[in-house]
């Protein structure tokens, strides 16, 4: 009986369907808890999905590569989702027309502080060259960051992880920090979250209000383009 069950388990764990199902179920559970806790930043669904999934894979000795055979079907949707951001961005163009002065100053400043700040701090605290190159593009959305990392001599897969960690940090610490700094304007909150914490910050910003989310989408898109041009130039 026990042997039969473990046979079924070994069989199921090999199926790509396993990684795909596990990811969606873990995310839905984490998202439910997030909503139940009133969208508290510390209950961030990306953070808790990753913790639960990494824990399950570690406990069951399933290598990441096998998990990813199934999870890649979710991962590839990042591409069309990035393209889809054109729609909220288009909606935000009206507000952009009214707040372009602020964005023209705040956004490049955030891009420089986020990328060169990370490079400077990593070097100061003695990180290896390849780690420094991997951390440089961490504030922009995954597909852009991995492309930049490869170009300047980093490890794209390490960059992907640092990007996610940055997004989680920004989504968790950003809203209370902005409130502490008395930044209440949804446009300013959106620009800060999108520029510093890309898609995860943007997802969080949409939880605050559609206007915050639209500004975060705009900041994330423009910050990605700016960083992709800036880093290969200064490297």
């Amino acid at each position, binding site marked *: 009986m026990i042997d039969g069950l473990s046979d079924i388990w070994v069989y199921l764990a090999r199926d790509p369907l396993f990684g795909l199902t596990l990811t969606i179920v873990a995310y839905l559970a984490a998202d439910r808890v997030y909503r139940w806790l009133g969208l508290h930043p510390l209950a961030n669904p990306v953070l808790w999905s990753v913790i639960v999934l990494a824990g399950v894979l*570690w406990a069951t000795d399933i290598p990441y590569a096998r998990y990813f055979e199934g999870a890649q079907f979710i991962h590839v949707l990042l591409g069309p989702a990035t393209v*889809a951001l054109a729609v909220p961005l288009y909606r935000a163009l009206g507000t952009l027309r009214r707040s372009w002065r602020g964005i023209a*100053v705040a956004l490049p400043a955030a891009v420089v502080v986020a990328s060169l700040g990370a490079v400077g701090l990593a070097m100061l605290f003695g990180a290896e060259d390849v780690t420094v190159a991997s951390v440089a593009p961490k504030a922009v959305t995954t597909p852009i960051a991995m492309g930049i990392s490869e170009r300047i001599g980093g490890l794209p897969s390490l960059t992907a992880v640092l990007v996610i960690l940055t997004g989680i940090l920004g989504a968790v610490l950003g809203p209370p920090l902005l409130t502490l700094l008395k930044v209440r304007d949804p446009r300013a909150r959106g620009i800060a979250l999108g520029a*510093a914490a890309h898609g995860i910050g943007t997802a969080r910003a949409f939880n605050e209000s559609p206007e915050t989310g639209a500004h975060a989408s705009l900041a994330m898109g423009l910050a990605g383009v700016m960083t992709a041009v800036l880093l290969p130039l200064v490297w």
Partner: protein
Amino acid sequence: MLPWLALLLVFQLAGEAARHALALPVPGPVLGMLALLLTLGVRGWLKRDGDAVPESLERAVGVLLGHLSLLFVPAGVGVMTHIALLATEAVPLAVALIGSTLAAIATAGPLMVLMERRP
């Protein structure tokens, strides 16, 4: 839903093609996003009074972006493959990530408020 997913993929593919052909530093999906933005802009300009975003596209995009967070989970789980490196470089990485993220948010938010304050 499906035709619009196809449209998004076509824009992404066009972006990838343009990136390779012109050796641009910007990734394909971002070029695709800029191309779709331009398309919507032209459509809005041509239609003037009407809405440039078809309602069915709006719905398809809503489904995809409604669970944007989910799409980052598979890459995030990759953290387990870099545990050794993350452990040896934990201090510089933690300082770099936390320091620069907080600094960028503390720069952008107040600067934006300062610039947008009406005199």
